[in-house]
């Protein structure tokens, strides 16, 4: 009922692919694209060693926290856009959203982020991994709180290892969630377990 109200008020939803950077959001975008979902990407950020199959980003999204001009998002109803979890709070509330949110072990996320920073020669921040883990943990709690309470957001939570382990099943869940007749086999083919690097194990965290 609530969904119908927001649908009538704000129109078809913009599909958002979200999560922390290095949690598998690019892979999700590839799945959607292969499945036949229209995705919004400017291809400015090109594939590299960290994301050999591309980033599927839109540079304009990265400025959402610095601008009040966000009406362009209305032109992307029914399409999928990648947005990191940090910027979800900056989305305009006069739109309807369906968020596919990827969750991944924070140790794996941090390890992958640190490797990426090493490769591009940036330090990022002086904060230790322990501090960043705590920062991200609290950040995610806030994000989940908002997503679960705002009426114009519907969220599908996916866990990265489950997507890698059973991509067909997760592709079905995604297709159902976005209410589209997507090619789930093609979606599943976008998942390559070989790209599941930086796995967290008890031995690695000891």
């Amino acid at each position, binding site marked *: 009922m609530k969904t119908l109200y927001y649908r009538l008020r704000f129109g078809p939803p913009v599909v958002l692919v979200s999560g922390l950077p290095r949690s598998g959001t690019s892979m999700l975008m590839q799945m959607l694209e292969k499945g036949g979902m229209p995705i919004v990407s400017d291809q400015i950020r090109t594939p590299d060693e960290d994301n050999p199959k591309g980033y599927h980003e839109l540079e304009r999204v990265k400025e959402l926290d610095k601008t009040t001009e966000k009406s362009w998002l209305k032109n992307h109803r029914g399409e999928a856009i990648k947005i990191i979890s940090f910027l979800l709070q900056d989305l305009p509330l006069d739109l309807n959203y369906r968020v596919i949110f990827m969750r991944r072990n924070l140790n794996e996320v941090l390890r992958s982020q640190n490797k990426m920073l090493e490769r591009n020669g940036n330090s990022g921040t002086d904060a230790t991994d322990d501090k960043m883990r705590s*920062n991200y943990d609290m950040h995610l709690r806030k994000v989940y709180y908002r997503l679960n309470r705002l009426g114009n957001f519907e969220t599908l939570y996916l866990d990265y290892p489950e997507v890698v382990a059973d991509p067909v099943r997760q592709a079905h869940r995604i297709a159902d969630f976005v209410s589209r007749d997507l090619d789930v086999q093609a979606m599943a083919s976008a998942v390559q377990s070989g790209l599941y690097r930086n796995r967290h194990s008890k031995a690695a965290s000891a």
Partner: protein
Amino acid sequence: MFGNKVKIEKALYNKIKMYSDIAGYSSIEEFVHHALQKEIEQFEGADSEEEIREKLKGLGYIS
């Protein structure tokens, strides 16, 4: 003064009253207000958000 009320069990209330007197707060409300504000600051931590922002900038995910 306060629009919202929170129920606290008697034993805890008595402790709050005792320690607010010992610590020199002018009222129980002032003590509770101060304690809760300190607790919330731990969660909000402005420096945490700045650290996340710096990390994400370094990674190229925000401009």
